[in-house]
C-alpha cells in the first residue's frame, strides 16, 4: 500500500499493521522495525511515513469521563471531532485544539499541537493529565508532568519517535455556548498587524490571515480575527455537511494570477477596519474541515506547508524579510496564517516559542525547494525554527539549530533503544 501525508508529498510504499489490541501491538513492535504510528494522516509531510506503519485509528474507545473535573480518558485513535460531537452539547470543549479537528488524540500529543489560544493557554501538552506509552521492549509506562517526566517531555512533540501512545487523559474546558464572538481587524501593513496583535493579546483566541502578495507599503497587511466563547447557553452543536473536492485540478489552476486574485478578493471582502461577527465552533476553529479533501486543490504533485516561528524581538524584521523574499519570488500562497505565540514549554521538540509564526502553503513546482532553502536561511539567521508536523524537506543542519534540546532527545532515544524500532522518513532525513 502507498501512504501519503496531508500534503500529498512524499509518497511511500509501506506495510500497514492495524492496532486493535495492546497485545497484538507488542507482537508487532517485537517483530518489526522502522515502525511509525499513523493516525488520521493529517501531518503534512513525512513525519508519519515509514516502511512499517502502525494504523492507530482502530484503537479508539472512550475509556472514562470524570464529569466533576472534566477529565476525559480516551484511546489514542479517537479523533478530536468525536470528542467535540459528544462533549460540546454537554458544555465541554478542548482546552487546546489545532486548526483541524480531524486528527487523532495520539497525533495531537506527538506533535504537541497548538491553537489560536497558544499565547494564553499553551500547547496540547498543557491539557494532558497523563498518557500510557508502549516502549520498544513492549513495556507500558505511564507518563505525566510528575511521572516519567523525561518520557513525557520527549513524547509530547516527539513525532511518534518514542514509542506508541496507547491512551491519553486530557482535561476539557467548560463552555457556555458553541458560538464565538469574533472581531475582525483589517490592517494596512506589517506594522499595523503587529500593533493589532499586541492590542488584542489578552483575548483568548487570535489568528491572522496575511496577504502575502502585497508589496511595498502594503507588505504584511492582514485580517486579524480574535474572539472568545459567547455565554448565550446555546450548545446545539452539529457537524455540518461537508463539501468535497472531486478531482485533482490541473496544476495550472492555482497559478500566480489566480492566487493573487483570491488574496485580493479575500482581503477586499472585509470593508471596515473593525467588524464584529458571531460564528460557530466549526467556522471559527475549523474553516478548512468544511471541505473534505481541500489538500487536492494543489494538484497531484502535492504541496508543502511551510511553518516557521521567530523570537518575538526579531519577528518584525525577520517576517518583513521573509515576506519580501516570497513576494519577489512570485510564489505566493493563499493560506498564509500569522499568529502570536506565548512562552515555550520544556518539551524537547515542541515547536512554539514566544514570538510570531507564519504558515504558508506552496504548491510543489520548479524552484520551490530553492526558495524554501533561502527562507530557512533567513529563519536561522533570526534564531527561529521549522514545525516538524508540517515539514517534508528541511535539512538536518537547519532543524538542529532551531531545536536546542535535540541532544537530550537523541540521548533518550538511544537509551531506550527507540532509534532501533521507531523511525519515519523525517527522522531518517534529519537524523533524530
Amino acid at each position, binding site marked *: 500500500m502507498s501512504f501519503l501525508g496531508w500534503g500529498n508529498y512524499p509518497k511511500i510504499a509501506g506495510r500497514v499493521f492495524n492496532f486493535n489490541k495492546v497485545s497484538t501491538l507488542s507482537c508487532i513492535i517485537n517483530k518489526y522495525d522502522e515502525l511509525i504510528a499513523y493516525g488520521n494522516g493529517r501531518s503534512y509531510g513525512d513525519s508519519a511515513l515509514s516502511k512499517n506503519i502502525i494504523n492507530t485509528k482502530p484503537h479508539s*474507545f*472512550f*475509556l*472514562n*469521563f470524570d464529569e466533576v473535573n472534566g477529565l476525559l480518558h480516551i484511546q489514542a485513535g479517537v479523533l478530536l471531532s468525536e470528542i467535540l460531537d459528544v462533549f460540546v452539547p454537554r458544555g465541554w470543549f478542548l482546552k487546546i485544539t489545532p486548526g483541524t479537528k480531524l486528527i487523532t488524540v495520539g497525533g495531537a500529543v506527538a506533535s504537541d499541537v497548538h491553537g489560536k489560544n497558544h499565547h494564553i493557554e499553551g500547547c496540547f501538552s498543557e491539557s494532558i493529565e497523563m498518557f500510557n506509552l508502549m516502549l520498544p521492549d513492549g513495556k507500558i509506562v505511564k507518563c505525566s508532568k510528575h511521572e516519567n517526566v523525561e518520557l513525557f517531555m520527549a513524547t509530547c512533540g516527539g513525532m511518534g519517535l518514542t514509542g506508541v501512545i496507547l491512551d491519553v487523559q486530557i482535561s476539557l474546558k467548560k463552555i457556555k455556548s458553541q458560538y464565538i464572538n469574533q472581531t475582525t481587524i483589517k490592517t494596512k501593513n506589517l506594522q499595523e498587524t503587529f500593533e493589532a496583535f499586541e492590542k488584542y493579546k489578552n483575548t483568548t483566541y487570535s489568528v491572522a490571515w496575511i496577504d502575502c502578495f502585497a508589496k511595498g507599503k502594503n507588505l504584511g497587511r492582514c485580517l486579524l480575527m480574535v474572539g472568545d466563547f459567547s455565554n448565550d447557553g446555546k450548545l446545539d452543536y452539529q457537524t455540518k455537511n461537508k463539501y468535497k473536492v472531486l478531482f485533482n485540478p490541473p496544476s495550472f489552476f492555482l497559478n500566480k494570477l489566480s492566487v493573487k486574485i483570491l488574496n485580493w478578493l479575500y482581503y477586499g471582502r472585509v470593508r471596515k477596519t473593525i467588524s464584529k461577527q458571531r460564528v460557530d465552533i466549526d467556522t471559527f476553529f475549523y474553516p478548512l474541515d468544511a471541505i473534505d479533501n481541500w489538500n487536492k486543490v494543489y494538484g497531484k504533485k502535492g504541496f508543502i506547508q511551510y511553518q516557521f516561528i521567530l523570537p518575538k524581538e526579531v519577528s518584525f524584521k525577520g517576517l518583513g524579510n521573509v515576506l519580501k523574499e516570497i513576494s519577489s519570488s512570485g510564489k505566493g500562497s493563499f493560506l498564509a496564517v500569522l499568529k502570536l505565540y506565548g512562552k515555550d514549554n520544556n518539551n524537547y521538540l515542541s515547536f512554539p516559542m514566544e514570538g510570531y509564526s507564519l504558515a504558508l502553503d506552496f504548491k510543489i513546482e520548479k524552484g520551490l525547494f530553492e526558495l524554501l532553502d533561502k527562507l530557512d536561511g533567513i529563519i536561522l539567521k533570526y534564531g527561529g525554527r521549522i514545525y516538524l508536523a508540517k515539514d517534508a524537506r528541511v535539512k538536518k543542519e537547519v532543524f538542529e539549530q532551531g531545536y536546542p534540546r535535540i541532544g537530550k532527545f537523541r540521548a533518550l532515544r538511544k537509551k531506550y533503544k527507540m532509534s532501533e524500532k521507531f523511525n519515519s522518513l523525517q527522522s531518517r532525513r534529519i537524523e533524530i
Partner: protein
Amino acid sequence: MNYVLIIGAKSDIAKAIARKYTKNGYDLFLAARQSSELETFANDLNIRTGRSVQCIELDILSYTLHKEFYNSLEEKPIGVIVVTGYLGNQKTAQSDFDEVKKIVDTNFTGIISLLNIIADDFEKRKSGFIVGISSVAGDRGRKSNYIYGSAKAAFSTYLSGLRNRLYDSNVQVLTVKPGYVKTRMTKGMDLPEILTAQPEEVAEDIYRAQQKENSVIYTKRIWKLIMLIINMIPEWKFKRSNI
C-alpha cells in the same frame, strides 16, 4: 427505559448496530459468549451517548439455558436484533458432520430456540420488534456455501412465518439479507467493492427499515436486483454455473 437486545453482539455488524441504536436514544443488552470482552465497548457507548449498555453472557448453543437467560433480564426489551452467524467451511462441512452441526445450530437451531421464547413474550405484550440477520446466501443454494446457505434459508423461512403469526399481535418482524459485508468474517476474501457494504451501512439500513416497519430488506440494496436475477436463472442452467 427502552432496551434493545442484541444477540451475537461481538460481530462487527452488531457493534455498528449498537452504535446506531445508542446514538438514537436506545439502551442496550449486549448478549454474547465471553461477554466480558465487550465491557470496554459497552463503556465507550455509555460515555459517548449516556445510554445504559449491559453485557450479558449467552451461548446460543446452550438451548436449555435460553429461558433462564431471557427471564434474567431485569427489564424486558422492546426489541431484539439477532446478528449471530457462523460461516463455517463448506469443504470441511461436506465431510465433517460436526462442522455441519455447528453451522446449522448456530445459524438456525440455537436462534430458533431463543426467538421462540422472546416471540411468546412479545406476542403476549402485543408489542415489540424482531430483527433477524439472514443472508442472500439463503436465497439460492450454490456449491460454494450451500450448507451455510441452507441454514440461512431456514432462518429466513422461520422469520417469514413468525412475521405472519405475529402480525395480529402488533409485533414487527424484519428479515435482513446482507450481501457482502466488510467484517472479520469476510477478512481476506477478495470482495468486489461496489457490492460490499461497510458494517455501518448495514446498521444504517437496519435502523431505517426497523423504524419504518419494513418486512424484508437487502443491504446493499443492489443485492435485491442481483438475487432477483439469480433466482430467475432456470435450474438446468444454474446447475452448470460457477456463480
